[in-house]
C-alpha cells in the first residue's frame, strides 16, 4: 500500500517534464494535480506500473468553477490488488475546455466522460463516441450543470418551467 507522497514521488521520477503538484492542505484526502493534455499517459503509467496497479477507475467527475474561470475533472483511482487509493485533478480553461481521454486505459471512463461532456461541456480529445447521453440528442439550450445555466421556456411544444 503506497501513500500519496510515495505515489507522487514515483510520478515525478517518471514524468520529469510535466508539471505535477501535490496538495495536502484541504480535507479529506491528498490530491495530485496534473495537466489536462498529459493525463492519459500518466493514467497509463498508474495502471501498468507493477507497484501501483491502479486497475479500478472508481469515479470521474467534472466540476464547474466559474470564479476561477476553470472547468476541472477529478479522477478517483483505486486498486483491487494492492488496495490503495489516489485522487487526481486536472483543470482547463472554461472557454475552451479540452482534456485527453482515458478510455484507452479504463473502458469504464467512456460513459463518465460522455456525461461530463453532456452536462458541463468538457470536450475529451480522442474519445471514441462523444455525444450527449442523458439529455435529449437535440437539446440546444446549453450545458445544464454549469452555474450560469438558464432554463429554456419551451422544448418541442412543452412548457419547461413550473
Amino acid at each position, binding site marked *: 500500500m503506497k501513500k500519496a507522497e510515495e505515489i507522487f514521488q514515483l510520478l515525478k521520477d517518471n514524468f520529469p517534464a510535466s508539471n505535477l503538484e501535490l496538495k495536502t492542505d484541504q*480535507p*479529506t*484526502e491528498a490530491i495530485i494535480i496534473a495537466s489536462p493534455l498529459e493525463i492519459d499517459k500518466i493514467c497509463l503509467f498508474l495502471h501498468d506500473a507493477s507497484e501501483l496497479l491502479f486497475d*479500478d477507475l472508481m*469515479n470521474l467527475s467534472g466540476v464547474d468553477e466559474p470564479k476561477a474561470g476553470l472547468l476541472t475533472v477529478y479522477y*478517483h483511482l*483505486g486498486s483491487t490488488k494492492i488496495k490503495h487509493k489516489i485522487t487526481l485533478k486536472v483543470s482547463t480553461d472554461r472557454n475552451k475546455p479540452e482534456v485527453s481521454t482515458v478510455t484507452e486505459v479504463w473502458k*469504464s471512463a467512456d*460513459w463518465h466522460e460522455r456525461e461530463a461532456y453532456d452536462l458541463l461541456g468538457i470536450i475529451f480529445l480522442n474519445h471514441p463516441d462523444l455525444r450527449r447521453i*442523458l439529455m435529449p440528442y437535440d437539446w440546444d439550450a446549453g450545458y445544464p450543470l454549469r452555474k450560469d445555466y438558464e432554463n429554456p421556456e419551451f422544448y418541442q411544444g412543452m412548457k419547461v418551467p413550473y
Partner: protein
Amino acid sequence: MAIKTEEMVLNMGPQHPSTHGVLRLELALEGEIITNVIPHIGYLHRCFEKHCEAMTYPQIVPYTDRMDYLAPMGNEFGYAIAMEKLLGIQVPERVEYIRVIMAELQRISSHLVALGTYGADIGAFTPFLYCFIDREKVLNLFEITCGARLLYNYIWIGGLSHDLHPDFIRKTREFIKEFRPNLKEINDLLSHNRIFIDRTANVGILPIDTAINYGVSGPNLRGSGFKWDIRKDDPYSIYSKFDFDIPVGEGKYGTVGDSWDRYYVRVLEMEESCKIIEQALDQLPEGDVQSAIPKRIKPVVGNVYARVENPRGDLGYFIMSDGSTSPYRVKVRAPSFVTMQVLNELCKGYMVADVVTILGSIDIVLGEIDR
C-alpha cells in the same frame, strides 16, 4: 450455399415489459444473432445533481432515496458516511448497528425484487409472487420503524430519524426464522429448474479482467469468480465486527461468469445477510440515536469520496463543499451506470431472446443510471 443476409436494426423501445424501466436498446442483428447493442439512456434523468446544489445538506437525503429506489437505505447510508467523513462526526454505536441491520434488510428486499422480476422475464411467473410476499414482510418492518414503505428518509447525517419500535427486534427475528425455509423454496422453484438452467447457463459470460476494466462491481463481479466486496476490502461502519462469507460464482451448471452464476450469487448473499442481521441483533447496544446530529451543517471547504456496498455494486459519493450550507457539487457514482457499458460485450454473438436474460442478470435500476 450461404444465405445472403443484411443487417437489421431492431428497437427495444423505452416501453417494454422486460427492460426494467425506461431503457432503449438498439439491437443490430444479423438474422437472429446480435452484432451490436447500443443502449440509450436518459429517459429518467431527474436532475439530482442540480437539486443538490440548491438544497441544504439534510434536505438532500430524500432525493438520494429516489435514485436507486429498490435500495434506498443503501443510498442514504452512503451519503451519511460521506458527510460524516467530511464533518468528522463519530456516531453512537447503536446508530451504527441499526444502520447495518437496515442496510442488510434492504439488501434482502432488493435481491428479492431482482430474482422475482428475473424469473418473470424468463417466463416463470410464480417465483415473482413468492418473492413479493417475503418482500411485504420486510416492508412491514420498515414501516413500523419509520412510517414509509418504499422511500424512507431514515438515515440522517449524524444519526437516525427515529429509534427502533419496541416490537422491531422480535418481529425481525420471526421474519428471519420464516425466511430461511422460504429461500429454500425459491431455490427449488427457480434455481435448479431445468428450463431456467437451459436459458441462463453459458449465456453472457463475463471474464474477470474485462469486468474490472469496465468498472463492474457487486454481485456481477462476484459472479465471475472475483472476491471483491467493499464491506470486507475497504470496510466502513462496523462491518469488520461481523462474521460472514463472500459468495462467488463457481460455474456449477456452465462456465464461470455466466448469467446463472450472477443470479445464484444473489441468492447466496441473502443467506449471508440473514447471518449479519442475527449477529447485529444479538450485539445491539443501548443509546440515543439522535445525540450526534448537528444542529446546523456547515462543513469546511474540502471534498470527500466515500463508497458503500449497495445491492447492485459500489455506490460512491463525491461531495465538494465550499463552506456554505449547500454543497458546491455532488457527483454520484452509480453502479448500474457503469455496469451498463459492459452490455455490448456480453451480448455479442447471442440471440435476441438472450438479451432479456443478460439484462435481467446484471440487475439494473434506471433511476440510478439516469439520476
